[in-house]
């Protein structure tokens, strides 16, 4: 495809728009977080800044900017300043490969994908950027020249690395089904079929559960928010950070939430696909259909952001050994099983000439097999009763 100047300009506008939307959504996630927290605790929530408190993010930002920007005396200054920015950078870079919508017809035979870059390694790109996010925390904690920060940073980094493995394995099952690493192709394979029935969630229930748990761990959200802990670490990796540098760290968490919501929607919930999109396209044309698709993806991503908050205000956090146990002895074996079982669900319909829904039946029967295995394992490992004396 020739890169025409119209296409270039449109792409530039699109990228700027995605950038702005991501930042805006992240900013309003902080407000949403507080509202959700308040409503779940039967409270009112922030309502002072503007009508219904909608200027609250603005007020928070002003507060953050106005605070004293403190740099510890013996810290390595350059890294200390650079690493919160890197945290933001890695959080924002992921959205480049998420397909936000279908093709947009710009007139004159020029069509633009509503996607930053359509590389054929899309999902690996997401992975690479996520694995870089560790540096933002690790080096930031080290540069503070504070032992508690360092401990928090190391805790965070080992948590992220542990859960990346299970996340990667759960994605591999998706890749086996679609046969491509490109996020665009992953979405397109979910589009043919009857509406939302062809979404990957129906054939990958176990994979989705693993992925969402790992997404929680990667975003450092409750119940895996161990990097920050006041009682154990005097705050965590950002103990020494103040003002907008701290703001960047906190903000990147919200960006990560939104982007991982978008990635989850792309991988498991059909991306920009929505029921009856053929009807919409036939009625109102390609552009309207694509824009509605963008809305659909945004809706799905925002729903996941809500789920992130919902879980945060429901669950207490895991203890660190429980977290590591869950990651290494729970999620990784299950995701291995999921990979094998996905292979089975692809193989069985093709070898026995069964219709397509058979693979879905096979993949859901995987849950049953997993449960039976767990029951056997549980019966073998659990002791009947331990008695403790309390005085």
């Amino acid at each position, binding site marked *: 495809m020739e890169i025409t100047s119209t296409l270039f300009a449109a792409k530039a506008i699109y990228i700027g728009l995605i950038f702005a939307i991501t930042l805006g959504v992240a900013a309003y996630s902080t407000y949403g977080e507080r509202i959700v927290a308040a409503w779940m605790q039967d409270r009112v929530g922030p309502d002072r800044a503007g009508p219904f408190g909608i200027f609250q993010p603005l007020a928070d930002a002003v507060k953050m900017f106005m605070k004293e920007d403190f740099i510890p005396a013996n810290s*390595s200054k350059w*890294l200390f300043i650079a690493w919160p920015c890197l945290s933001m950078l890695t959080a924002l870079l992921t959205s480049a490969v998420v397909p936000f919508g279908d093709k947009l017809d710009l007139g004159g035979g020029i069509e633009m994908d509503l996607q930053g870059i359509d*590389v*054929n*390694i899309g999902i*690996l*790109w997401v*992975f*690479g950027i996520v*694995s*870089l996010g*560790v*540096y933002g925390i*690790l*080096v930031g904690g*080290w540069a503070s020249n504070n032992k508690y920060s*360092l401990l928090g940073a*190391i805790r965070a*980094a*080992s948590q992220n*690395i542990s859960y*990346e493995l299970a996340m990667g394995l759960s994605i591999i099952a998706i890749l086996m089904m679609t046969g491509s*690493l490109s996020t665009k192709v992953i979405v397109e394979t979910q589009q043919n079929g009857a509406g939302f029935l062809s979404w990957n969630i129906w054939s990958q229930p176990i994979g989705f559960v693993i992925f969402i748990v790992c997404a929680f761990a990667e975003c450092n959200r409750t119940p895996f928010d161990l990097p920050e802990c006041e009682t154990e670490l005097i705050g965590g990796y950002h103990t020494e950070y103040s003002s907008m540098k701290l703001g960047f760290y906190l903000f990147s968490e919200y960006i990560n939430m939104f982007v991982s919501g978008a990635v989850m929607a792309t991988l498991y919930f059909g991306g920009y696909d929505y029921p009856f999109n053929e009807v919409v396209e036939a009625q109102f044309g390609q552009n309207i259909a694509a824009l509605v698709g963008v809305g659909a993806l945004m809706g799905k991503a925002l729903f996941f952001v809500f789920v992130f908050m919902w879980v945060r205000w429901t669950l207490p956090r895991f203890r660190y050994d429980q977290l590591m146990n869950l990651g290494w002895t729970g999620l990784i074996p299950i995701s291995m099983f999921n990979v094998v079982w996905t292979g089975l669900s692809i193989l069985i319909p093709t070898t026995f000439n069964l219709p397509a829904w058979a693979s879905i039946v096979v993949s859901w029967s995987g849950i049953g097999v997993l449960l039976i295995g767990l029951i056997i394992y549980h019966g073998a490992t659990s002791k009947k009763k331990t008695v403790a004396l309390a005085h």
Partner: protein
Amino acid sequence: MNFWYFLTALTLLSALMVVFAKNPIHSVLYLVFTFFCISGHYVLLNAQFLMAVNIIVYAGAIMVLFLFVIMMLDLRKNVPESKSNLTKLAGAVLGGTLLVVFIAATRHMNLGNGSGAIGAQTGMVESLGMILYKDYLLPFELVSVLFFVAMVGAVMLGKREAGERNF
């Protein structure tokens, strides 16, 4: 082409900084940056898969482990003040040998019309997968066995023996 020169200069500079940086953490970070530059070279060669894997495996996983170890060690105490003459000599001999090997290798390299033989799709995932799983299936599987053996070895080394207390 200009971009290639810029990237190469950046790569060499950061690679040199790995050696010359006094702080080991800075050294590791420069190394990470070097990996990024090399990934940039992969992109220029249209080998996107290698670029992503390079970032994930080297920059994302291995260097994090390096950082872990270096942060945990108290390097200020462990660094010997000056190396003995014998180590200096051994280092010089080793480095010199490596240099000779490199020069010999480059002299025999044919820099002529090499680029014509490589198609634009060579570095893509599909063709890479085809090569790995068809032409080089046995070596590929052997490497995975090697990894497995290494993993078992690591588990065995890390296993706590009976009666041993680590903390």
